[in-house]
Structures are given as structure tokens and as C-alpha cells.
């Protein structure tokens, strides 16, 4: 193969990786701090894309507004879900949270499918990000370049907030020993609620990023979420840095597979997952 094509595939891998990273980041935050395996994540990503569509078509608010507003709208829905349902499950086994969120995902997808069908809705790339750059070895759409940069920035910011700030320290302490942290006067339940809302907001943000590239359709989340779970498992459940690095890394590996043996591109990530689980069950960046 020629090196030009190789570079092209690597870059495309990075673009897809940025979606994996962004989504698995939200999952890792929620799992790491709440111990909930959030199966609704894919549905929340899908809802994010739909909200962007509604903002444009019902309220006349374009892409940039959608980027700003959508995470808060969908995050608020997340807060309601956490307060009404998830908060009742913290004392039970992980499995209950998984089942609840899985059920919610099916309800979200079913409702949107009933209302909007499966062919999806059109959403255009914003004017300012249209066009392509000729990099010599490939054409890079401006919009995709923006997605890489933006998602890297968001990933690093999230990592920084959780691992390097006082707020993050509270959060991590609250998961270790909620009673003690509460004794210091920190409102732990509220903090957990907001964390879940933030994780969901990240999914919605990824949904807005995806709207102009993929179809805005009810099943856009379910086709991605399984891969994202594999990313989280490979990276190590709950590890923030793990999910970012693995997200980008697997995007690249998948991109290369698409070049060398495209038929395997939908399975390569799971093969890696199986190997990682055999050799290092806690994941590449997992603690235990």
C-alpha cells in the first residue's frame, strides 16, 4: 500500500476515535464516580443529535447554539432520571443499574423510532465549517478537523477537572467514602446528581458533533454504544485517561482494518477486547 493512503486512514481513525473517546469519557465518569453502567448513553447521544435538529428546525437556532444548549437540555433530563430512578439503586448490585438504563435506552429509541421513523433527518454542516483542506495525501473536511480538536479539548478538560482540581478531589473522595465527605459539609447526593447530568451532557455533546456527519436517526446510538462499551472495557472501567487514550487508539486500529480488511472492521474492536480481557482483565489502564 502507499503511504499516502496510510496517512489518510490514520487521520480518519483519529476522527472516529474522537467520537469513541468523547462517549467513553462520559461513561467512564459515570461509572467511576457513581458505579452505574450507563446503558442509556447511546440513547442520550441520539437525543442530543435530535435536540440539535429541533433547535434548528423549530427554534431557528443553528449549530453553535445547539452545541451550547443541547448538553444542558439533555443533561437536565439525565438529572431527572438520576433523581427519580437511579438514586434508588446505588445500594444494589451493578446489574440493577445496568438493567434500568438498558430499559430506558430501549424506551427512548422506541419512542423516537415511532415518531420519526428510521431513515433519519437531515442536518447540515454549519456554513463556517464547510469545505475541505487538501493535505496532499487526503482531503480533510474542515468539519472533521474541528471535531478532532474540539473533542480533544473537551477530553483533556474533563480529565483535568476530575484528576487535578479540588472539585474533582471531592468527587473522587465522595465515591470512596460518601459518609465522611458528607460529614465535612459537602452535599454528596447533589454532587452525584450533577455528575450524572454532566456525563449525560457529554453524550449529548457528542450527539451534536455527530449530527452533521451521520444520519440523525433513532438507532444512531445503539450502533455506536456497543463499540463504546468495548472501548471502556479495554481502557479499564472508570479510568478517565484510559478511556480517552483507548478511544483514539481503537479508532486508529479500526481505520487501519478498514483499509487492509474492511470485512473485519466491525469486529476488530471486539477481538481486541477479548484479548485484553484474557491477558489483563482489569483493562489497560484499570487499577485493580
Amino acid at each position, binding site marked *: 500500500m502507499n503511504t499516502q493512503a496510510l496517512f489518510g486512514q490514520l487521520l*480518519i481513525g483519529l476522527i472516529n476515535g474522537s467520537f469513541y473517546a468523547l462517549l467513553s469519557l462520559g461513561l467512564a465518569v459515570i461509572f467511576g464516580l457513581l458505579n452505574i453502567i450507563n446503558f442509556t448513553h447511546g440513547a442520550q447521544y441520539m437525543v442530543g443529535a435530535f435536540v440539535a435538529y429541533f433547535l434548528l428546525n423549530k427554534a431557528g437556532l443553528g449549530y453553535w447554539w445547539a452545541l451550547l444548549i443541547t448538553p444542558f437540555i439533555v443533561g437536565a433530563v439525565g438529572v431527572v432520571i438520576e433523581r427519580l430512578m437511579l438514586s434508588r439503586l446505588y445500594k444494589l448490585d451493578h446489574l440493577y443499574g445496568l438493567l434500568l438504563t438498558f430499559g430506558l435506552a430501549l424506551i427512548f429509541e422506541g419512542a423516537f423510532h415511532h415518531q420519526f*421513523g428510521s431513515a433519519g433527518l437531515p442536518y447540515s454542516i454549519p456554513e463556517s465549517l464547510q469545505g475541505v483542506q487538501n493535505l496532499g495525501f487526503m482531503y480533510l473536511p474542515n468539519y472533521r478537523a474541528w471535531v478532532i480538536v474540539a473533542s480533544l479539548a473537551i477530553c483533556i478538560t474533563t480529565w483535568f477537572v476530575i484528576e487535578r482540581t479540588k472539585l474533582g478531589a471531592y468527587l473522587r473522595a465522595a465515591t470512596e467514602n460518601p459518609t465522611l465527605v458528607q460529614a465535612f459539609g459537602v452535599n454528596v447526593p447533589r454532587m452525584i446528581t450533577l455528575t450524572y447530568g454532566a456525563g449525560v451532557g457529554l453524550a449529548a455533546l457528542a450527539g451534536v458533533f455527530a449530527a452533521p456527519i451521520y*444520519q440523525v436517526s433513532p438507532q444512531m446510538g445503539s450502533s455506536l454504544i456497543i463499540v463504546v462499551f468495548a472501548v471502556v472495557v479495554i481502557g479499564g472501567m472508570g479510568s478517565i485517561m484510559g478511556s480517552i487514550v483507548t478511544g483514539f487508539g481503537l479508532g486508529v486500529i479500526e481505520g487501519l482494518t478498514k483499509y487492509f480488511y474492511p470485512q473485519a472492521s466491525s469486529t476488530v474492536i471486539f477481538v481486541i477486547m477479548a484479548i485484553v480481557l484474557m491477558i489483563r482483565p482489569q483493562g489497560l489502564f484499570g487499577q485493580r
Partner: protein
Amino acid sequence: MTFKLKTLAAAAALAFAAGGAHAQISGGVVKIGILNDQSSLYADLGGQGSVTAAKMAVEDFKAKDKGLNVEVIFADHQNKPDVGTQIANKWIDNEGVDVIVDTPNSGVALAVNEVVRTKGKVFINSGAASSDLTGAKCSPNTVHWTYDTWMLANGTGKAIVKTGGDTWFFITADYAFGHALERDTKAVVEKNGGKVLGDVKVPLNNQDFSSFLLQAQASKAKIIGLANAGGDTINSIKQASEFGIVKGGQNLAGLLVFLSDVHGIGLDKAQGLILTETFYWDLNDSTRAWSKRFAAANGGKYPTMVQAGVYAGVLHYLKAVAAIKSDDGTKVVAEMKKLPTDDPLFGKGTIREDGRKIHNAYLFEVKKPSESKGPYDYYKLRATIPAAEAFRPLKDGGCSLVK
């Protein structure tokens, strides 16, 4: 004692006489099973719309007045041949289903084709594309109604090669349908003096096509043939526009594009696409009238050719059942082939020995946003391919039913 026996015998005789009218209809009811994708990438081109279409056919046939008790049920095959086979078996063995209709996804369709053949029922396929259904895999129990890969290749493929698109690269859905469509299109391209430079096989229901588009771009082929359907086609076309494929001088050929796909892509990105269909709602007064009724019953969504084919296929099936007063699968299909077809959507036509329904095909071009006057006003007619030329000649299919 003798008296009792006599009354019993009389009662039995009466019961038989009463049932006489339905004697040949198994279970006293003609049961139509719509088996298709209800929830995923092909749900909008068939899905619930096909169920609506079948119900409209039953209504328009006035089955009740003709003494026929008809029931329509449906199920989701999830695009998995094993699930489809399982449902088909269950329907036929336990639930008395007489005819399985629609079934997009050639993989599932070929599997169901075998089940129906073994059990002697009827399979009216509208949604699947593989021309093998009336070729190597043809069956005395199957009618392939709406379109097939040969017809698509012959329509779109030929038109494009004729206008100078003589080098091709295929992006192909990696299962029975994609392979058949690529094979049939390749044959047309080469026959008309074109050349195929390469292809890439993509897993079904893929989200990101950029890698494949990049390979297509690198091939320098003039035409990138999309041998895929539904959500896959939508994503490929959207992303091709993003990567500036058309601006870079290459053109896309959507080998199978449905009205619902154009709706999902939006005219700004889909404009100029050339495509072949056998039905469009805006063809004539009767298609318009029917489509308005359909849309009203289908949440405002206009019919695709697959849904139109379900309507016409069910209508013709019921005519055949009424004519021979039986729902015996093999006999009904023989009668369907004997009766000339006539319906408001496809007009007059015939069903060939190999099960292929014959009607006109149309070469359309997707309108510019400025040309579209209202919802679903998406196509303009470029050419009509007469019924006699639209489908593969009978002798070329290799069907064992053709003597």
C-alpha cells in the same frame, strides 16, 4: 339410538355444507404475514408502511363482500436470516399463515424463499433486491414483485456508462444483496465498454464511510457505485458530500435509492442523483390518488416503491385466491402467473414463469431544492424503460422452472 345417530349425521352434514364455501381455505381465513425490518435501517422503506399498504389492498379488494376472511399480521426479522427463518416456520406451522410478503434484505429473503418452497406456501417479495430470487434460486412458490438488482444495474448503470461514466469503483454492502447488485452492475458496465477499477466490501449498517470513500477517491474512478441501501446509502452520500467527492470531479451512482432515503439525505445533498425505480407517487393520477390515501394512513410519509409493491402484490394474490377458491400455495402462484396483473400503481403487467413480475421501470433524477414544489416532490423523470427491456431476459436467469 338410531334416531340419535341420524341427527348426528345430519348435523355433521350440515356443518360440512356450511363450511363448503371456505372448504379450500385453510382455517377459514387467508392469513397474510408481513415479514420485514420494523426497527432498523430498512424500516422506513418497508416497515409499518408495508403493513398499511397490505391492509389497504385487503380493503380495496373488498374481501369481505367476496366471502373471503383476510387477516394481516407482521413481524420484525431484524435483518437476520435465522430470525426470519424462525418466524416463517412458526407462522406457517403454528399460525396458519398462507402468504409471506415484503421481506427486504436479500439474505433473509433467500432464506425465507427456501422455507416457503418446502412448505408449499406463497412468498411475494417486494423489498429484497437479489435477482437470484428469480434466477438460480427461483421457486414455484415465489413472486418477485417490485424490482431487482439486474433491473437496477440495467437502468442506472447503463444510463451512467452511456453518458461517459466509464470507470467505476464500488462501495458494496457485504451480504447477498450488495454482492448481487455489484455483480449485475459490473456486467452492465463491462458490456457497455466501461471498466471496474476496484471495490470495497462494507459490513451492513455501517455508520462511518470515510475510509471507504477515501479508497474510492484514491482509485480515481469517475463513478463511485454505491451497492448498498437504506441507512447505508444515506450515510455514504452525506459523507461523500462532506469529503468533496463530487467537487473533486468524481460522481456518485446510488444503485438503489428509495424515496425515503432522498427524504433523509435532503435535496441539497441528493440533488442530481440518478436512480431507477418502478414506482413513484407522482407518476399519474391513480398513483397520486393512492399515495395521498397512503400518506394519510402512514403518518404523512409517502410510499416507497417497496410499499407500493406490497399493495399491488397482495391485491393480485387475493384475486388469484378468489379465482380458484383455494389458498393452496403452489396453485395460487400458478394462478397468479396465469392472470394478467392490473392495479392502480404499476398498471397492466404479467408474472413470468420464473416468478418475475414485469412492468415499466423509470430512470429519475433527484430535483434541485429550487425545483421542488412541495413535500416529497423529489424526482423528475428522465426516461421510461419499457417493461420488455426493464428486467433480465427469461433465458438468462438460469431458473430451473424455465423450460
